[in-house]
C-alpha cells in the first residue's frame, strides 16, 4: 500500500516545524510535499533583525538546508505559490498550474505586513518588513539613501528602526500610540525605552497618523505627510503597523475563517482533512504573531497528523524581549493590570531600572521589566506555573535572590557581559560561545543549548543566565515550558507530574508497565527517565515494585562513589557524626590493607576513603561490617548524613541533646531513598554550630524545645532553610521531620532537592500537610516508617550471591 500524502502550504517556521515534530514521532508515515512562495529553504524569520543590523549574514539564519529536505524524502517546491485548494478533488494548484493531491493538508501561510491604506502606499521605496526580500531591499536602500521613516513603534518597527540607524540612516519612527510598544509595555517602561533609543539617535513622533506618502521626481517615495500637516523627508518607508493573517486562500476554498483560519484545540480546521498552524490561524479567537506559540501549535498538529490523537493546544501565554542589542526589556502576561489586579512597582529612573509585577488572587499574572531583566525567566515561570506567591510576596519584586549562586563570578545580568565572559564555570563556556551555538544551530530551548554548548549542563547554577542569553538572542521565540508540562526526557512527552500520578492512579508497578501504558518512544528509556521511573515505582509501591539496579546510576548500583579515574570512594556511616576508637582503628586498618591513597574528612562529619578499586569494594565492606559499621550512603539520592553539634551533652550553652537527637533521626531514616540527596543537621542551641540553616531538614534546640527548618541547601545555590514549626519533644521532631520527608518522597520530582520542591509547592502547602493536619502528618510518618521497615545495609547484601557479580571482572580464558 502506498503511503498517504501530506501536502504543506507554506515553507516557513510553523509549517516546517510541524514536519520536524512529525518526523520525530512517526518518520515514515507520509509522503510529504512542501510548497513555499519564497525562493529560499526554511529560515529563521526572527533573526531578520540581526541581519538588518548587520550582526548576522543571510546564510547564518537558514534553519533547514536543502539537504534536510532531501534526507527526509520531502519534495520541496520553492518559489511556487499555491493559488487554489480544491477540497473536493483533494488537490492544491500552484500559480504555474502545477497540482498536487493530498490525503492530509497543512496550511501554514503565515501573515503579511499590514500596508496602511493611504495614498502612495504602493510607491517604490515603501516596504513591509516580513521576509528576506524586504530585508535586502532595506539594506540596499540604506546604502543609497539617507532618510528613513518607520511607521509603527511596535517590536518589529523598533527593530527595523534600530537596524537602519546602525546602517547609517537618519531614522524617524511614526507611531499612533501614546507610547512605544504599547502592546507590550506600560507607559512608564515605554517612556524609558524611548529615552534610551533617543540617546542612540533615533527620532520619534508619537500619536501621529499618516495621511499620505508623496512621490518624488524619480518616481520613488520622497516624503511622508502626517494628518497634522507635518511633512518629513523619506527615501524609505517601512510599514510595521501590524500583520494580517494570510487566510484568503483557505477562505476561497470554503474553509471557515474569521480573522484567520479557525482551528480547534487539535489545530484542525472545519475540514477534518485540513490542519492549519502558525500566524494564519485563529485559535479561540486569537491569532498569535510570536513564534513560541507557533511551536506549541506545531507539536500538537504533528501529534494529530501522526494519528496519535492525544495532544491539545489550549493557547499560550507569551513573553516579549526586544532584540535591540544593549537594551534590556522584558514583558509577559497581563502587564497592564486592570480590574481587581494589584501592582508591585519598583521605580529607579536615575538607575534606569523599572519593574512592575501584576498580581491577582495571589498569583502573578503579568510583569514588565526594564533595565534589569535578570529575573524575567523566573517571573515567567511563576506566571505559567500559576504558583501561589502569597508566601514570597514581600520579596517578590527583588527577584529570585541570586546571592550565593556560584560558578559565574556573581554575574546575574547577561546583557552587560562581555562576549568573552565565562558563563558556565563547570564547563568553561563563554557568552560568545553560547550565542554562536544558538545562532548557528538554530536553538530555541534551554535543553538544546545545554546539549550543544554544554553550558548549564553540569551543576546548572548558570541556567538562569543561559536562559537570559537565549531570550535576548531569539527574543519572542523564547518561552520556557511550565514546570508542570516539561517532558521528563526525549523518550516521552509526559512531564514528571503526570508520570508520577499515572504510576499511582493506574497502579503500575514495573518499568515495562510504565513504558507500555504511557507509550514511551524508546524501548527501554534512557539514562534520564529510567532512574526517575524506578524511583517513582519504589517510592509509590514499596511493597510491590522491585528495585531495578540497572535503572540506577552506577553509584547506587555499586554503593560507592565513582571518581574521575574509575575508582570508588567508601564512606562508612557514623551515626550523628559520632565514632569510636574501635571504629577508627578498623577504618585505619582497612585503609592500609587496601592501600587507600587518600583519607579525607567530609563536610557531613564522616571519613571518606578514596581511590578504591571496584573489585576491592566487597572485601573492604566485609572488614568494615565486621567492625560494626554500615554503608554511609554517601553516594545516593538518599539520606546522607545527620550532622550534629556536641549539644547539651557537653556544651556549656547547649539547651538540647543534639547528638542524641541526631542519632535517633539518622537511625529512623537509614536506607531512605528520595528524589535527591537528603541532609539533616541538629544544633543544640541557636548558635547553630551544626549549620542547620542550610539543610533539607534543620533542627535547632531552644530551651523550650526545638525549631524545625526545611528546604535549606548549601550547594550550588545557597538557600536558607525556612521555618516550619516549633515542637517540644524528641518524638515530635521525628514525626514532623519524617512527615515532611515522606511528603517530599511522595510528591517531589526526581532530582528535585527539597528547596526546589518547596519553591514549587510553596511553604504554605507544606505547613498545611505537615503542621496543621494532625492525622495527615501521622499517616505520612507511618508510611515513611512502613517503607523503611525492611531497610538493610546494602554493603551487607551486595557482598554475596548474584549481587557480587558486578564487582568481579571477567577474564579471557587461555
Amino acid at each position, binding site marked *: 500500500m502506498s503511503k498517504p500524502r501530506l501536502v504543506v502550504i507554506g515553507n516557513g517556521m510553523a509549517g516546517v516545524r510541524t514536519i520536524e515534530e512529525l518526523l520525530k514521532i512517526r518518520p515514515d508515515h507520509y509522503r510529504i510535499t512542501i510548497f513555499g512562495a519564497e525562493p529560499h529553504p526554511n529560515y529563521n524569520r526572527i533573526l531578520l533583525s540581526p541581519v538588518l543590523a548587520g550582526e548576522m549574514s543571510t546564510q547564518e539564519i537558514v534553519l533547514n538546508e536543502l539537504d534536510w529536505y532531501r534526507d527526509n524524502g520531502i519534495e520541496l517546491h520553492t518559489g511556487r505559490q499555491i493559488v487554489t485548494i480544491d477540497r473536493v478533488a483533494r488537490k492544491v494548484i500552484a500559480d504555474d498550474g502545477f497540482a498536487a493531491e493530498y490525503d492530509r493538508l497543512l496550511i501554514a501561510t503565515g501573515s503579511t505586513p499590514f500596508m496602511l491604506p493611504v495614498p502612495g502606499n504602493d510607491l517604490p521605496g515603501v516596504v513591509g518588513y516580513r521576509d528576506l526580500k524586504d530585508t535586502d531591499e532595506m539594506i540596499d536602500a540604506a546604502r543609497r539613501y539617507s532618510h528613513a521613516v518607520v511607521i509603527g513603534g511596535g517590536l518589529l518597527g523598533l527593530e527595523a528602526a534600530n537596524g537602519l540607524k546602525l546602517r547609517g540612516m537618519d531614522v524617524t519612527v511614526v507611531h499612533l500610540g501614546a507610547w512605544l510598544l504599547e502592546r507590550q509595555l506600560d507607559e512608564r517602561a515605554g517612556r524609558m525605552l524611548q529615552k534610551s533609543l533617543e540617546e542612540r539617535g533615533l527620532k520619534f513622533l508619537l500619536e501621529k497618523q499618516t495621511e499620505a506618502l508623496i512621490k518624488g521626481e524619480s518616481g520613488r517615495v520622497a516624503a511622508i505627510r502626517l494628518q497634522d500637516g507635518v511633512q518629513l523627508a523619506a527615501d524609505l518607508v517601512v510599514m510595521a503597523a501590524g500583520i494580517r493573517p494570510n487566510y484568503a486562500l483557505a477562505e476561497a476554498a470554503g474553509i471557515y475563517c474569521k480573522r484567520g483560519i479557525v482551528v480547534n484545540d487539535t489545530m484542525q480546521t472545519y475540514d477534518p482533512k485540513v490542519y492549519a498552524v502558525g500566524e494564519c490561524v485563529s485559535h479561540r479567537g486569537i491569532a498569535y504573531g510570536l513564534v513560541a506559540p507557533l511551536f506549541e501549535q506545531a507539536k500538537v498538529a504533528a501529534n494529530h497528523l501522526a494519528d496519535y490523537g492525544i495532544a491539545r493546544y489550549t493557547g499560550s501565554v507569551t513573553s516579549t524581549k526586544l532584540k535591540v542589542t544593549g537594551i534590556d526589556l522584558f514583558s509577559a502576561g497581563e502587564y497592564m493590570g486592570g480590574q481587581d489586579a494589584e501592582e508591585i512597582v519598583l521605580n529607579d529612573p536615575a538607575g534606569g531600572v523599572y519593574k512592575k509585577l501584576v498580581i491577582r488572587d495571589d498569583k502573578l499574572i503579568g510583569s514588565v521589566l526594564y533595565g534589569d531583566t535578570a529575573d524575567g525567566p523566573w517571573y515567567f515561570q511563576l506566571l505559567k506555573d500559576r504558583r501561589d506567591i502569597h508566601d514570597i510576596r514581600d520579596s517578590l519584586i527583588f527577584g529570585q535572590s541570586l546571592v550565593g549562586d556560584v560558578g559565574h563570578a556573581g554575574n546575574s545580568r547577561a546583557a552587560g557581559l562581555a562576549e568573552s565572559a565565562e558563563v558556565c564555570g563547570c564547563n568553561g563556556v563563554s557568552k560568545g560561545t553560547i550565542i554562536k551555538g544558538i545562532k548557528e544551530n538554530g536553538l530555541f530551548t534551554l535543553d538544546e543549548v545545554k546539549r550543544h554548548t554544554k553550558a548549564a549542563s553540569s551543576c546548572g547554577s548558570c541556567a538562569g543566565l543561559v536562559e537570559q542569553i537565549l531570550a535576548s538572542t531569539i527574543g519572542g521565540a523564547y518561552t520556557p515550558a511550565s514546570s508542570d508540562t516539561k517532558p521528563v526526557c526525549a523518550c516521552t512527552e509526559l512531564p514528571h507530574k503526570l508520570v508520577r500520578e499515572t504510576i499511582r492512579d493506574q497502579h503500575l508497578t514495573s518499568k515495562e508497565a510504565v513504558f507500555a501504558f504511557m507509550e514511551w518512544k524508546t524501548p527501554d528509556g*534512557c*539514562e534520564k527517565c*529510567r532512574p526517575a521511573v524506578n524511583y517513582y515505582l519504589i517510592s509509590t509501591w514499596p511493597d510491590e515494585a522491585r528495585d531495578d539496579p540497572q535503572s540506577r546510576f552506577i553509584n547506587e548500583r555499586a554503593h560507592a562513589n565513582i571518581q574521575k579515574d574509575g575508582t570508588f570512594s567508601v564512606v562508612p556511616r557514623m551515626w550523628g557524626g559520632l565514632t569510636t576508637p574501635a571504629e577508627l582503628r578498623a577504618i585505619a586498618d582497612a585503609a592500609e590493607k587496601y592501600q587507600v591513597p587518600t583519607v579525607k574528612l567530609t563536610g557531613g562529619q564522616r571519613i571518606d576513603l578514596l581511590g578504591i578499586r571496584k573489585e576491592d569494594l566487597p572485601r573492604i565492606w566485609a572488614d568494615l561490617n565486621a567492625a560494626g559499621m554500615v554503608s554511609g550512603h554517601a553516594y545516593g539520592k538518599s539520606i546522607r548524613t545527620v550532622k550534629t553539634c556536641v549539644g547539651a551533652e557537653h556544651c556549656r550553652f547547649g539547651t538540647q541533646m543534639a547528638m542524641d537527637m541526631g542519632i535517633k533521626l539518622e537511625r529512623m531514616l537509614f536506607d531512605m531513598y528520595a528524589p535527591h540527596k537528603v541532609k539533616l543537621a541538629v544544633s543544640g542551641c541557636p548558635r547553630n554550630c551544626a549549620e542547620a540553616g542550610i539543610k533539607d531538614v534543620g533542627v535547632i534546640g531552644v530551651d523550650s524545645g526545638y525549631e524545625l527548618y526545611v528546604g535549606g541547601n548549601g550547594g550550588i545555590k545557597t538557600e536558607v532553610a525556612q521555618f516550619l514549626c516549633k515542637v517540644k519533644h524528641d518524638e515530635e521532631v521525628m514525626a514532623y521531620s519524617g512527615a515532611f520527608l515522606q511528603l517530599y518522597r511522595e510528591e517531589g520530582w526526581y532530582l528535585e532537592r527539597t528547596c526546589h520542591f518547596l519553591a514549587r509547592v510553596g511553604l504554605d502547602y507544606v505547613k498545611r500537610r505537615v503542621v496543621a493536619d494532625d492525622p495527615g502528618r501521622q499517616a505520612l510518618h507511618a508510611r515513611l516508617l512502613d517503607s523503611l521497615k525492611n531497610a538493610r545495609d546494602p554493603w551487607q547484601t551486595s557482598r554475596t550471591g548474584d549481587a557480587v557479580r558486578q564487582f568481579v571482572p*571477567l577474564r*579471557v580464558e587461555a
Partner: protein
Amino acid sequence: MSNWKRICQLDEIPRLGSRVVQGTKSGDIALFRTAADQVFALHDKCPHKSGPLSQGIVHGERVSCPLHGWNIRLDDGQAVAPDVGSCRSFAVSVRDGEVFLAV
C-alpha cells in the same frame, strides 16, 4: 583473522547491564547486554574523558558514560550527536548461551 575467546555465559551479564573483561592485550573491554539479549563489546574508555563505560546505564543500543553523560552507540562506538568522538568496538558472538569475544 580474529581470535575468538570464550568469555562467559550470557546469563552472567545482566540485561541492560554490563561486565568488564580484563587481561586482554587491548586493555579493559566492556561487554554490554541489551534488553533484546544482543551483546556488544567496546573499549572500556569513553572518548571524552576516559570514563569506564562499563559502569554506565545501558538503554536501547547505547550506553551513557557515568562521568559526564556522553551517549555512546554500542554497535560502532560512535558518540551520539552533538558530541563527537569514537571508541574502539570489538566483535562479539553468542552461541548456545555462551559469549565469545574477538580479541
